[in-house]
């Protein structure tokens, strides 16, 4: 039997690589990033823009303390509305994102559809939630509906991106294998792809809910409902600074509690529906 051509190549020794093949691009990026930081830092710290920080702290302590909880029932009502805005907007965004993200995944959809969908997701993500709220208040007036739609659009941009990246990280060959033995496209997705990706989707959706509760507290500043509207009213009052402190304390308490709760639920879900493999 004649020699295998692969063996002839192997006997010639290790081939040398060109300089650009050996270049570590990550290190180059770190150096570029360092230069940009030094340049930006120099521009940001300017003599004439420095403020009297101590005077600021003194003013803050005198004006904002002690907190005024006299309107606590109003704060609670606004917090409930904040929750409702966050929950409804996250639910709608999760459903829409699941559909849109399959169109934005390179391993599932054709290139033209992926490009179009990603462009749409990029546009929705570019505008911060506050700007979305500001625009939608123009259409719907100062109502919680404007808030719900604002957070839905914003979440869609993020969840669509997250979900499509999760789908892309999965081995599509599993679903293709099922199609070869007779599964339809929906079955191939449900049995070959979804079980492997659902823990991530759950985790990302919960993260989005936490994020939306934080966002829903702010969008009221432009009139889109929730605790932010109460905050806005208090700030406009001449003697409302202590009420502002009370509202901020409530927001802080709720956000920290939810962060901790969200982390625990995410960990529980990940372990429950996607246990680690024995090789991990």
């Amino acid at each position: 039997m004649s020699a295998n051509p692969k063996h002839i190549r192997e006997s010639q020794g290790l081939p040398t690589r060109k300089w650009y093949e050996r270049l570590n691009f990550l290190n180059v990026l770190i150096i570029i990033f360092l230069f940009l930081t030094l340049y930006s830092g120099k521009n940001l710290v300017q003599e004439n823009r420095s403020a009297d920080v101590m005077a600021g702290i003194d003013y803050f302590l005198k004006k904002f303390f002690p907190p005024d909880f006299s309107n606590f029932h109003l704060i609670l009502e606004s917090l409930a509305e904040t929750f409702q805005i966050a929950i409804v907007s996250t639910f709608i965004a999760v459903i829409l994102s699941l559909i849109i993200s399959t169109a934005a995944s390179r391993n599932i959809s054709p290139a033209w559809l992926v490009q179009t969908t990603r462009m749409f997701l990029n546009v929705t993500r570019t505008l911060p939630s506050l700007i979305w709220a500001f625009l939608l208040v123009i259409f719907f007036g100062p109502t919680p509906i404007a808030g719900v739609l604002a957070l839905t659009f914003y979440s869609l941009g993020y969840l669509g991106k997250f979900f499509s990246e999760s789908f892309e990280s999965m081995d599509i060959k599993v679903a293709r294998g099922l199609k070869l033995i007779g599964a339809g496209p929906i079955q191939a997705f449900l049995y070959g792809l979804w079980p492997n990706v659902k823990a991530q989707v759950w985790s990302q959706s919960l993260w989005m809910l936490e994020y939306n509760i934080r966002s829903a507290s702010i969008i009221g500043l432009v009139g889109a409902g929730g605790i932010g509207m109460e905050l806005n009213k208090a700030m406009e009052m001449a003697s409302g600074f202590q009420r502002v402190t009370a509202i901020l304390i409530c927001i802080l308490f709720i956000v920290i509690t939810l962060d901790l709760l969200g982390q625990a639920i995410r960990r529980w879900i990940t372990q429950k529906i996607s246990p680690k493999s024995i090789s991990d």
Partner: protein
Amino acid sequence: MSCLKTKDLGLRRNERWLFKNLNLNIPAGSVVAILGPSGVGKSSLISCLSGSESPTEGEINFECKAGEIRNPENISPELGIIFQSLRLTEHVTVLENVLYGKIAQYGLKESFFGFPESDKNIAYETLKELGIAHLAYKWTSQTSGGEKQRTAIARTLFQDPKFILADEPVSNLDNYYSGRVMGLFRNLASQEKKIIFCALHDPQLISRFANYALSLNPERPENWNLREIKPKL
């Protein structure tokens, strides 16, 4: 009686022919072992037969009943495939992976209400036969390489197709289970007249269980060779 025929089948990849002018006529009840060194094209031939890769030239015909010719595009669910990479859904139980074997028979109803109990019992019996019944409700991601391979084999046995393509189906199994799996294949071929195509390395397994050996030639892709072997069993 079913049979598998290829006509002038050829596959060219990266400017190199892996096999060419492959003309086979495999009768029902055969276990065909595909031989050759790594990279010779054994998996590629299985990919062509399964329809996951299109051949460069030639055609593949599966005859399920006399006169009923099908090709890789419309042979499912009569074609079972044991992939080299197994292609199991990691985050479901071993039993569920086996049940996916009959996926073509199920509709969307099963995704909400679960698979039929009768099928679950049959799938469980298949797991018993391969010695992994104790893993039925274990997550597939938490099983070992050999256990996963037996799960993939159980899925195909549960599917009960007329044709089975197996790409190194016993590579992660010990001698006992290698012999047991190949013995099961041999019985399915002799008793149920199935056709089984296996990429195999172990000469002992080939001489014991196969009745055809197809050798691919890396230097001369058109010089493939199919010889008949009398199985020892």
